[in-house]
């Protein structure tokens, strides 16, 4: 069962951890696995360190190959270099094929990108260009056929199932075009769901008041404080998406992955959602990767990359508003 596990625990096969997620300068990896409190300590330390400069963004080889945009190539390169936050999520040469009977359909044909901490990145492209697949790969919901994905400088695409589940639960938040709330649960319970998944029964029961407060606070923040006990079908589309955002945020993720977050909403609701995302990006310094087919939405992102037939559009360099 993964719910009680953190990504720092060895997988079920007892394989020793070599993933950088478990890296701590003070303690060797094996020792870090010993107990939970120390694990948390290691996490804090790692977070502190990450804020400092000089943390490797992606792995060396990828950087050497120059596969992700280097913003220090700009005019004010020197200033920028020091100011630039570290790269948080980075994909190197991702390839993904889908098999339909005997026909192999290439969806991604070698996509490389990097997302810096606190950045709002929009991935645009026509339907079928592979942008959703890219997002799913970044969210570790699916494994690439080739290529590597790094989160906080450590490779995540080949993690074992339980570790990937824990990574999604703790560090990634996802929102979808169709909100994907669970219809049986109230809004509050939907928001609580990642916390319930992350905690075991006893831990949840012990901390339920605190966790409920967290969830209710987030719903308050997204403007649904009066809708805690409502079922998703009693909410409007915008409200559902805001609840979904609250759910994505409840585990204090490092990065929010949004798949067409406004695709199913009317203009006004869509704008509200976008404003909310902007606010989160600005106030919480939340990294947001957003997939959309709407250029007007993409414009509002810090940077936009365009996918054409499974590849980044040539010349679509880093765009900054």
């Amino acid at each position, binding site marked *: *069962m993964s*719910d009680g596990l953190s990504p720092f625990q060895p997988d079920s096969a007892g394989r020793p951890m070599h993933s950088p997620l478990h890296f701590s300068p003070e303690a060797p990896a094996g020792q870090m696995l010993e107990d939970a409190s120390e694990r948390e300590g290691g996490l804090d330390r790692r977070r502190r360190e990450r804020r400092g400069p000089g943390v490797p963004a992606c792995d060396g080889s990828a950087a050497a190959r120059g596969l992700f945009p280097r913003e220090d190539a700009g005019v004010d390169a020197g200033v920028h270099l020091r100011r630039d936050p570290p790269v948080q999520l980075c994909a190197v040469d991702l390839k993904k094929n889908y098999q339909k009977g005997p026909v192999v359909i290439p969806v991604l044909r070698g996509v490389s990108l990097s997302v810096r901490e606190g950045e709002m990145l929009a991935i645009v492209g026509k339907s079928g260009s592979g942008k959703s697949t890219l997002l799913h790969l970044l969210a570790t919901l699916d494994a690439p056929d080739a290529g590597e994905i790094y989160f906080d400088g450590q490779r995540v695409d080949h993690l074992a199932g339980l570790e990937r589940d824990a990574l999604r639960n703790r560090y990634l938040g996802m929102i979808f075009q169709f909100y*994907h*709330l669970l219809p*049986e649960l109230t809004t509050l319970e939907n928001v609580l769901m990642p916390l319930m998944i992350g905690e075991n*029964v006893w831990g949840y029961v012990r901390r339920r008041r605190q966790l409920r407060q967290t969830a209710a606070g987030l719903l308050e923040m997204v403007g649904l404080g009066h809708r805690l006990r409502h079922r998703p079908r009693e909410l409007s589309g915008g409200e559902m998406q805001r609840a979904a955002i609250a759910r994505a945020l409840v585990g204090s993720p490092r990065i929010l992955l949004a798949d067409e977050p406004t695709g199913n909403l009317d203009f006004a609701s869509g704008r509200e959602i976008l404003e909310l995302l902007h606010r989160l990006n600005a106030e919480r310094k939340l990294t947001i990767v957003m997939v959309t087919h709407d250029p007007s939405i993409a414009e509002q992102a810090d940077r936009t990359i365009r996918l054409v037939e499974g590849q980044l559009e040539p010349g679509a360099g880093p765009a900054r508003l």
Partner: protein
Amino acid sequence: MYKLLLSWRYLRTRYIALASIVSVTLGVATMIVVNSVMHGFTTEMRNRIHGILSDVVFESRTIDGFRDAQWHMDRISQIAGNEIAAMTPTVVVPAMLNFEVGDQWITKPVQLIGIDPETQGKVSDFGHYLQHPANRETLSFELRERGYDTYDHQAGPNSRPRKQMAFAGMGYRRRMAESRRFLAAMTAPPGQASAPKAGAGEGASIPPADPFAGVNLADPFSQKKSEEGEAADSGYEQHTGLVMGIALGSFPQQIGKKKDGTPEYEDVFMVLPGDDVKLTFPTAGMPPQAASGLFTIVDFYESKMSEYDSSFMFMPIRKLQEMRGMIDPTTQVAMVNSIQIKLKPGVDGSALRDKLQAEFHPELYVVSTWQDKQSALLAAVQMETAILNILLFLIIAVAGFGILAIFFMIVVEKTRDIGILKSLGASGWGVMGIFLAYGLALGLLGSGVGMGLGLWLVAQINWIADVLGRITGRPVFDPEIYYFYKIPAIVDPFTVTWIVCGAVAIAVLASVLPAIRAARMHPVEALRYE
């Protein structure tokens, strides 16, 4: 936690799944009822058989038996004295019973058992089955004046009435003798009215003529008769006492209908305590000859085992030995053909049987426990219970496949939710856990309700049988057949636990496959599912 929450929510919102466990509920309820009733029947039957038979029976292979019961009992005591609570010698012979009802003679084959009134009650519940309260205390082969139960004392005052029993006893016997004498006087030719013929028997004056009247009876009997003298023959004194199986002398008769429409019966007695009957049985020795005699019924024996109630007759062992010529005229040492042994509590009857059989040559002696005596019947009931259980458990298993199918449906319906959960970080195990917990919850609910229903049905079994009988117009439980007035049901907590656990296990097992399917579902495929 989310597993519990979600399975709880699914339980409350997916009524189709509830429908699928109705069969679990019914299966569990039926199994509990069937097992309780079968258990009740078996227990009741075993109690009765055990009450009639002693724990261990030591018999000779021949009907003439073995000499000197006391020597045998001493020998048995030597072998296993510390395991034996009591012993009594008996003589068992097949016999033919004749009695007169109205103007016809009824003949029935019976098992005549000579018992020692002193010790018989110590080895079995013999006394418990008698109809006179005083006889239940201490058995006596003397006819009581009156006071026989007018209802079945084992079933209580609300059972079938036995009005005739109010007359039974010595007083009845005297009145009957008076009326016969009067009738004889009325029908006899003038001049002979006041002189009853010696040796003619009381039936002689009533047509058709007593077929036994002219028979030259076997020696012991005729001697006996002349010793007893005219008084017994005339009906004022009793012959040798006889306890008769109640079904031999009575039958139930419908006397109307109760308010609820079920037929109401009363027991009609063809003979009563105080009446005389004739018994014919073989004497000892070769070739056996027929010994015959008149006996007075002093009580009825009602064990509720129809097999016994319609064949057993008990008389004093000494008298039977005398009549069969089983007493050595010089030494006065009598022969018996069986010894009833009652064990101390907790003693293993089979072990004792083997121990005794090893000492007594099996060509001459048979040692058997009461279970051996009724092994065929007990085994049949056991077999019946086992087969019923297998069938009913198959019903629950079928219900399991229903759950399997509906769970697959629910998993398909919940495909997107599974994708969402996985995208939120739920593991395959976690998703599997939701459906296993759901299956467990369904199983617990289904078998819990089934258990409640089953226990309620057991508690109300007789009322339900009545209602069903009224609806179908045919009594579900006919006391005439079973000799119990109500359905005996005993709930065995162990069995109930097993049934419930089995049903829950089936529900969980049925949810394993759908749960595995859910766990293996690819999150991206699941999210794309519409």
